[in-house]
């Protein structure tokens, strides 16, 4: 923003009455001592100003002035609104207040800036009298003499430093410098733990172990959000779908690990009409009359594969449209996923749907060591 000096509120000094212009309040007094411009020994082109038609220039000046005044008023309203209105009734709280404040503050701000912008633009176009000028494009590269001189000095300096004549110096310097770059990188090792076997287990495994230690066969499935355990009879309507988690996550995990374990354990439970369900080999006892559970973590890049189309029995991930067939071990039917969703072995205990073990393969996206 070009803050023109004429706008500064300078001191109102004595009036000039040596024949020059009257001073108006707000314009600073001209300096009396040395001239501002340096001697013209550099070829900066001189531009003689255009002559303006005074009548239309005066009109333009009034237009610009009114835009600047509008900007001034908008800023004043911004401040006045903030101080006088936005704090009423205990201040801004909630959606309706936020909306009002946003409109007023934003609207006045926009008005102030845009008015100033328009004012300056009209000023440039109608009131600035500079004429276009020409400037030479000099060669960027140094001339021959300078280059030669530089080369000379450079080589002389290298000789003087001794680096050219003393190879031992050179080589040991490089040796010293090399690990300096590597050493700090080593400090980054503690950014995080090593992966080890973490990606191969989920909380289902821990929960099942704990349940089996208590003499049960497995851990109950609970509805994510209500923590309500599900009976087989609760979930008996064909075409049902719900998101489930292992029971007891919040009780048995420290608070800062709950979401991390949910990210691997989250599971989609589906009731496939038993006539249409085709259990995979070796998984005959992983389902309960067509009630089947798959990992909700998409095997592509990990979004929740959450859409379920009851009519086509397709599980669709909304991120990149990987599609899995719920009747057939969630094998991939379309999209960028390369692996089917892992299936959770289910059973029944006391009428409740339980999981009898962890997933038999890592959930989520593929990784190098997955195998």
């Amino acid at each position: 923003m070009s803050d023109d000096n004429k706008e500064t509120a300078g001191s109102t000094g004595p009036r000039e009455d040596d024949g020059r212009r009257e001073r108006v309040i707000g314009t600073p007094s001209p300096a009396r001592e040395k001239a501002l411009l340096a001697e013209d020994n550099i070829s900066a082109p001189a531009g003689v100003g255009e002559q303006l038609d005074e009548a239309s220039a005066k009109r333009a000046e009034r237009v610009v002035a009114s835009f600047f005044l509008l900007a001034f008023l908008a800023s004043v309203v911004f401040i006045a609104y903030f101080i006088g209105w936005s704090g009423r009734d205990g201040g801004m709280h909630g959606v309706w207040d936020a909306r009002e404040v946003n409109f007023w503050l934003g609207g006045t701000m926009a008005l102030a800036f845009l008015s100033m912008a328009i004012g300056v633009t009209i000023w440039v176009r109608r009131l600035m009298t500079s004429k276009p000028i020409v400037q030479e494009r000099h060669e960027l590269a140094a001339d021959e003499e300078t280059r030669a001189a530089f080369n000379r000095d450079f080589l002389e300096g290298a000789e003087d430093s001794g680096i050219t004549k003393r190879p031992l110096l050179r080589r040991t310097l490089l040796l010293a410098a090399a690990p300096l770059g590597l050493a700090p990188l080593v400090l980054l090792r503690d950014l995080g733990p090593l992966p080890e076997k973490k990606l191969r287990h989920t909380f289902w495994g821990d929960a099942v172990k704990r349940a089996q230690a208590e003499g049960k066969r497995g851990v109950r499935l609970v509805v994510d959000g209500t923590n309500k355990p599900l009976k087989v009879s609760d979930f008996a309507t064909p075409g049902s779908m719900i998101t489930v988690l292992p029971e007891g996550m919040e009780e048995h995990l420290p608070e800062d690990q709950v979401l991390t374990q949910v990210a691997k354990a989250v599971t989609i439970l589906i009731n496939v009409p038993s006539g249409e369900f085709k259990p995979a080999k070796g998984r005959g006892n992983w389902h309960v009359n067509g009630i089947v559970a798959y990992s909700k973590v998409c095997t592509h890049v990990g979004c929740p594969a959450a859409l379920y189309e009851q009519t086509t029995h397709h599980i669709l991930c909304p991120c990149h449209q990987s599609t899995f067939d719920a009747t057939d071990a969630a094998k991939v039917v379309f999209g960028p996923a390369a692996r089917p969703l892992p299936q959770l072995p289910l059973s029944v205990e006391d009428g409740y749907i339980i999981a009898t073990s962890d997933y038999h393969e890592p959930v989520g996206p593929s990784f190098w060591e997955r195998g």
Partner: protein
Amino acid sequence: MSEATAPKAVEAPLTFLDDRLGSTTFFKRNMKKVFPDHWSFMLGEIALYSFIILLLTGVFLTLWFRPSMGEVVYDGSYVPLKGVKMSEAYASTLHISFDIRGGLLMRQIHHWAALLFMASILAHMLRVFFTGAYRKPRELNWLIGIGMFTLGMLEGLAGYSLPDDLLSGTGLRITQGVAEGIPVVGTYIYMFLFGGEFPGQDIVPRLYMVHILLIPALLLGLVTAHMMIMWVQKHTAMPVKNQSEKQVYGYPFYPVFMAKTGAYFLFTFGVLALFGAFAQINPIWLFGPYDPGAISSASQPDWYMGVLEGSLRIMPGWEINAWGHTLSLSVLIPAALPLGIVFGGAAAWPWVEAWVTGDKRHHHVNTRPRNAPVRTATGIAAVTFYGLLWLAGANDVLADKFHVSLFATTWFFRVTFFVGPVIAFIVTKRICLGLQRKDADIVGHGVESGVILMSPDGKFSERHEPARDEEKHVILSKENARLQPPDRDANGIPAPGSKGPIGHLRSRLNRAWTYDDIPVEEHEDGHEEIESGRTSREIKH
């Protein structure tokens, strides 16, 4: 008007600085620096001023934002989320939006400015490409620009992930999934980035540091270098009258250009404030806090990440499993290939073009896009490639709004991924050549005047008038392609570098660059006079 001394309030500080820094010499030399005028030269300024606005609004936001993933129970004034467990980052963002006056405005201006920053860089980059302004001596600035766009993408990703809402958290999940798939080191990168398993507690504070310290510092450095290089080299000019390789013509920096650029800053701020006031963006309270079990349809990242999203969607599910290891092609190819082609190709382009054309001269005057058909066509092909992938990232929205089958959109983009850029190249080249022909016609035969004349023997013809000087100058700025000098010297010895497969490739590419060039030059035979039915020239405006 032209007094010899300036007012005291101006003169005193200037003298103060001059005594200590020798600044008046600098000012004197540069006050009248010429900046040539063209609207498209201002696109880069949008980026510059948006960046400043991002810094200003960003500082405001840092005063209240809490970059912590520690869980709190929300007790603020947004009623539908009262009592909900969420991270401090999310809760503080809600606080800024609903309890800090002007907070929502600053958040919105900040986010709109980020979108505008990236959009204007791209628009500016396209302008530079299509006018050939990346050629010597400006290759460095071109590279700096590509670097800034890449940094901007990372900065935006880090920034919109800070509130830890459902939409951006899903983006982080995808980032994690892609990182995990990198061969050999993927799982380590994943664990090191997140400080453990996803989502963990560390990613938001780490991204905060990247977003407010690391990348802004890099950007500030790069933008300063970018401006300084442009200052020293002087801006390029369009091939109009008064502009040449030896001189630049335009208004002086002081006072005209300063005022114009100042006005543009005010416009940028004003437009962004307008958006912040009247167009809602990133309503995180509607998305809810991040929950790895939840997701919404139409989950897309901000537009500048759209290309990656589209690539991930259209890639088929290919994976190689061998010897106990998995190579996730379905993830790695989309992550690396398309942007690798576009940015890598763009970065290499100045040198590739110089190698193909053999043009090692300095260029300060821009070329009209039509006069470099292969360059323009390649650029449009790249834009098509980028644009199709970007649209592919929104394929579910397209399927929903236009009632087309979802899988059909995926197949459409899979096919046009390959076919689109080729068609775009061919069509664009044809258009450029057609425009060249039109130019040659205007220079050779003048402009149609709309006046029909009948000759004595009853034949009708349209009178053509010579083009105006300005127009002719622009048209004749074209450098007609000349044959490359023979690559054998007088004794029949082939020039170094012209033999072998690379050398042959180069000569073939060189021929392809120039073979269908249409010469645009003034004729000496004066058949304009014959066409016009006059014997003397009249210049009409």
